[in-house]
């Protein structure tokens, strides 16, 4: 059952159409990713879902509520983690959770939340004395303190070190396992690939693709690449004659063979039959990065 329904959403900033007819549904318990280059309309889209921005067209329903009309009611069940939102430097971790918890009818067990986010020893630490990663985790805790059914997390791990990012991902999976539906806005491919059940790729205010991570990469290309260093010389035709092989390139001592399904098995058996050992063998598959570039024509990291 869809817990979030967005139909033909439109948002204009003056004469600029930031969101241009976006539609999607998110199922209960799903982690739904919104991926796209900067300025694609990702944040504007989720802000319309959250009720932080009024839309100029289309309809949005979250748990049957209209974010614009039933804003206060919706926010009782919606947890929002904002990009770039800080707290006063002198407020302590425990105080912030206590304060934000008092805004909700149903509040999470703050002690457990603090422990789960690894802030147990920091209860009395002022916000200004926390590291970037700890501030980010507190911000996630504040988004979860009202026991939300739906959480919208915008650029969750930007500015975190690799360890903190992986810890945050684990946390998000735990949150989902407790039954919370999650919308994740990101421009990190690895994050989307690791966490999301489905991904909407957004570009210039439109959804250009909506699929599972595997579906997205398959959609771009079924191609595989096998790269190796042969132990002995062999003529190109040896491999090119195989139906699985489309192309063969040589670069220095290395051979790169490109082709379709079962490429590796076909290449490996021919080489074995000819007593050629393939050293440094690597199979390269199309990544979500490649899919993203193919779909949007832009590099994901900027």
């Amino acid at each position, binding site marked *: 059952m869809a817990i979030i329904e967005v139909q033909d959403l439109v948002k204009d900033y003056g004469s600029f159409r930031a969101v241009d007819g976006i539609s999607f549904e998110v199922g209960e318990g799903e982690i739904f990713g919104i991926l796209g280059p900067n300025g694609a309309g990702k944040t504007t889209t989720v802000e319309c879902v*959250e009720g*932080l921005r009024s839309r100029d067209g289309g309809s949005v329903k979250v748990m049957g509520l209209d974010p614009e009309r039933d804003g*206060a*009611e919706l*926010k*009782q069940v*919606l947890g*929002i983690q*904002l990009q*770039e*939102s*800080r*707290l*006063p430097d*002198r*407020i302590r971790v425990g*105080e912030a959770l*206590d*304060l*934000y918890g*008092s*805004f*909700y*009818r149903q509040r999470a067990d703050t002690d457990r939340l603090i422990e789960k986010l690894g802030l147990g020893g920091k209860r009395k630490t002022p916000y200004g004395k926390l590291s970037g990663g700890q501030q980010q985790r507190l911000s996630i805790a*504040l*988004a979860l303190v*009202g026991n939300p059914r739906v959480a919208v997390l915008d650029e969750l791990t930007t500015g975190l070190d690799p360890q903190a990012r992986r810890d945050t991902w684990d946390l998000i999976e735990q949150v989902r396992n407790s039954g919370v539906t999650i919308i994740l806005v990101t421009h990190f491919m690895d994050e989307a690939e690791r966490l999301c059940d489905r991904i909407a790729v957004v570009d210039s205010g439109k959804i250009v693709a909506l699929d599972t991570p595997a579906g997205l990469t398959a959609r771009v290309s079924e191609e595989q690449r096998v790269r190796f260093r042969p132990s002995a010389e062999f003529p190109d035709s040896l491999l090119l004659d195989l139906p699985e092989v489309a192309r063969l390139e040589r670069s220095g001592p290395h051979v790169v063979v490109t082709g379709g399904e079962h490429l590796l098995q076909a290449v490996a058996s021919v080489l074995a039959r000819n007593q050629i050992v393939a050293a440094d063998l690597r199979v390269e598959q199309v990544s979500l990065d490649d899919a993203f570039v193919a779909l949007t024509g832009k590099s994901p990291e900027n």
Partner: protein
Amino acid sequence: MSSLGKLVQIETRLFLRDPMSFTIGLLLPAAVLLGLGAVPMLREPSPDMGGQRFIDYFAPSTLVMAVGVIGLTNLPAVLAAYRERGVLRRMRTTPIHPAKLLLAQLIVNIGASLASALLVIVAGKLVFDVPMPQHPWGFAIAFVLGISSVFAIGMLVAAVAPTARAASGLSTVLFMSVMFFGGVYLPRFMLPDAVARIGDYVPPGVQSLLDAWTGTAPAVIPLVVMAATAIGAGAVAARIFKWE
């Protein structure tokens, strides 16, 4: 506890934890009064001040300081910083409207002004026997209207300033003017008469406070000006205030 109660509680703690707001806002006005009172000459009656002692004459000016420091420097700076840091924006993601945070800030800052004023009155009475305000009702009305007009201007600064830096620049200019016209820098009998008369109408209205303190009912027109300033500036601030 209700969310507003909780907000007031936390904002009070934040106010007290900030050494600037605590020492300058809360303690400085009383300290200035005590410091000046320590000079023997300022405790002698003088014909310049209609036979009053300087310390009696100057006490209302330290009230101007108490209200001005908190209403014109602390309040707009905190609110502009809350907007700049996204604190107000984060409030918008919760079921509670950020207007409640503004209200909590007003409550805490008005409370601090009252505490500071009380400190001035009590310290003056206990240490130098400065009499308590002699026209209590007139004093209460003058003080409430004075504080309202200054805080409304503070809210207006918070509403128009795009950044915390801009807020502090703007509020410093206003604060200096209020202190000047309120006779904090130069006792008002040393100011040209025209400047002193203008000062009657500059928030928070030092002459009304002085009159009521010494037992005369404060004049009506300056009080009306304070009320009009409070309503006018407050209404404009409420209209144009941006949450982000």
